[in-house]
């Protein structure tokens, strides 16, 4: 099963989302509190200064997968400013643990990439 996790680098200056990082970003977004799908996408876009464009189509399969893994739970609740109901997702304790793990994994990978990029001298 292929889940498209990379957002298209549509506009100039936008970065492609690395494979598997969408999960991390969703979990991190929910750390600040419950949110519905649209809000999650907006939040990621906004906090990355519009650098990361989430393809909305790929968001929902990811959300459902995280829910299936028990990292987040969903419930229909009334929105803050209206009488409409939205499906809110929130982090579970298991999800918090997963976030810590994903985060350190990401940090290690980023550090490793940084070292390679900053390395000066002969490859031999």
């Amino acid at each position: 099963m292929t889940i498209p996790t990379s957002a298209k680098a549509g506009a100039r200056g936008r970065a492609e989302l690395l494979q598997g990082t969408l999960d991390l970003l969703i979990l991190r977004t929910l750390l600040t509190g419950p949110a519905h799908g649209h809000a999650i996408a907006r939040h990621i876009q906004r906090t990355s200064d519009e650098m990361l464009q989430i393809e909305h189509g790929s968001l929902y399969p990811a959300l459902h997968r995280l829910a299936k893994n028990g990292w987040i739970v969903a419930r229909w609740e009334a929105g803050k400013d209206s009488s409409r109901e939205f499906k809110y997702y929130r982090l579970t304790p298991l999800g918090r643990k997963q976030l810590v793990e994903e985060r350190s994994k990401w940090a290690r990978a980023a550090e490793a990439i940084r070292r390679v990029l900053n390395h000066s001298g002969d490859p031999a």
Partner: protein
Amino acid sequence: MRRQRPEDDLERELRTHVELEAEEQAGAGVSPAEACRRARVALGNPSVIAEDVRSVWHCRRLEEIGQDVRFGLRQLRRKPGFALIAMLTLALGIGANTAMFSVAEAALWRTLPYPHPEQLVEPTEVDAKNPAAVWGTTYPTFRDWQARAASFEHLALMFRFRKTLREGGEPVRLNGMAVTYDYFAVLKVQPEKGRVLTAQDDQVGAPLAMVLSHDLWTSRFHRDPAILGRTVNFAGLTFTVVGVMPAGFNAGFNSEPVACWVPFVPVVPASYTQRRNLWAFSAIGRLRADRTAAQARAELEQIMVPIRKEFPDTNRGFAIAVPSLRETLTGDIRSALLVLLAAAGLVLLIACANLAVLSSVRVAGRARELAVRAALGAGRRRLVAQLLTESALLSAAGGLAGIGLAYGATRSLSAFSQDPRLLQATLNVPVLVFVLCAAIASTLISGVVPALQSGVEAQKSQETLTSRSGGQLRRTRLQQALVVTEIALCLVLLMGAGLLLQTLRNVLHVDAGFRTDHLIVMQLGLPASYSTGAQSLQFYRALPGRLSGLPGVTAATVTSSLPLTGGEGNGDISIEGRPSAPGQLGGASFHHPLPGFFQAMGIPILSGRDFDGRDDGTRGRVVIINEHMARTFWPAADPIGKRIKLGPPQNNPWLTVVGVVKNVHRRNLDDEMGFTVYTPLLEGADNNADVAVRVAGDPAAIIREVRTELRRLEPALLISHLDTMDQRIEDSVSPRRLNLILFGLFAGLALALACIGLYGVIAYAVGQRAQEFGVRMALGARRGQVLRQVLGQGLRLVAGGTGLGVALSVALAGAMRKLLFGVSPLDPGILVAAAVLLAAIALAACWIPARRATRVEPALALRGES
């Protein structure tokens, strides 16, 4: 909150998302309709998202499998021709494999009916230079092994003999086995009734005990419950039955079952057991759990070092081998079965490749359907699953039909083979597991190619919907590669069948050395009332005269053992004036015929004379040798008048060579020629002899009268193996004939399948290019040109496949070597013949679609309607 179906829930979630997005867009000053449109575009195709989310929900998606099966069945029903061919090819492929596997399983892999059968070994002395020459061992050497070897839990000695049983009906010749007492401890099998033989039975002067096989107890004693304690006359001795073994116990030894077991020491003559140079026995042992056969071999070699030093007689370039019981039981048929199994595997592979080609052609034809389904939201995975389901359905149907086919094949095997090891084949659990694996393998092999292709097709849904061909080139390449592979594998099988055919012809064309036609042969057993050799001899001497008096009989003769029959003795050769170590000059098999034997058999006497009535040992011992022996030992000189000895020189007399006769094959036509000597029957005979009767007309018509006449001479006479010599030769080549029949069947199947595949590809290509052909013919191309072009395309595939097939045949040649006789596994004549046959038939398969190409109506083609 209220429960809702997950589908509705998802739908609602996506709808709220679009609403929110639209509100945001509207806030930025876009018209409501445009905002709505933008929001939808931003989200993407909701049904694709839903599909993706759904596949997150159910990993297995059972409902889809049900749908796929129903849809697959509908698809197959719509194309019954395709479904039928696919099922038939798979049924044949799987059926051939299942039948072969069930035979191989029964003969090679089925667990032997003994506890821990892997510990059972048959240690033996073999020729160090030719380990296939198994000598068994001698009794004193066995005793040394038994006393000193620590590798065995138990070690026993066996002596197989064929003697007459005169109990419970007509006298009959049976296989008996004299065994040392721990034989049953080696095999660890309990008797069905009574007890097995013990150490008390196996000593000098003990009362003669006998253990019956279940079959003998059933066939001759009607399962007499009071069998224990009953006396039985066998081999001229009176035994007391002490036990009955369970059914199936004796089935394992050799291809002929053992009817009864008797104690070794009281039965085997002392003259056999005292000699260190009589290799008449086989050992069987059970390895200790912590020892391997290699360790046992090393240990026995150590034990042999001082023995060979002390008894130079035993030192004749031997080595020890410790084959497992399994190896000794199946060594002669193993390679044939494995090669046939591999051949069947190739057939299945071809069948799968074939199905892949046909499905691929079909998928290409269904490109638009697939594109439509993709556009309607079916995920790529779903399409692949759909196509795999279809090939799984076909494989399942093929597998079921294959089981039926295999059942029929194993049932009718007895028409082609009498080998009990093969006839044990049944459809048991391992065989059914094998069928399952074969069906799964063929699903994957035949389904994956079109399935992957469908993924490509579906991705290109947009272009496919509008244009008429997409991914054309790649698809064609793949089909062509499959067809080339089919042709190559087919050539390998044709080559193998050709080699086996040549082998059978070679064997049947071997000059037996005597006239095999119009010859009736049999074994005689005189009753115990003929207690001296002189009495037996008197009977034998009268035989030729009495039988020749029958109408239609031209000659009759008696000998100790006939050619192509086996059962002769073997002794070391010594030659006067040529000192040699024991066994150095080799051994000769010996036969004892009546005077007139050579003439009756049609064996030419090359020099010297036949025996006559005065050669009874009283005026000097004489011998006739075969041509091979004469050429080997007296290449330049005349052997007549030379003197030789047979057997240990210290206790055998000199024999004067009086004649040289043409070489005769002793056991089988494909045997290597050995040394043969003949000494006169008149020097001494016993109760057993072979008789040959030469007739003028049809031997089958006269067999009964011969039997009647013999019974008239001696009512208690035991007549066995009454046959024509032609029948006996036919029996001796029946394993080779079976190999050929099966291999030929597989090659024929492969050829048919490869042609169907080739036809499919060419027909598809012609269909694709109909428009082009039409245009070209409209522009003046002649039919012949179009025909040549299409045939040329087929020819390229055939040539490629043949080339690859030749390379494969070369690579696989070694595997066939053991099954061949008188022909090289790379015989160029057969290779060329196979390639030409294949090419001719394959091109014929291309002819039909090529003709169709020339019939395209230019006008229709131009309008794109053909």
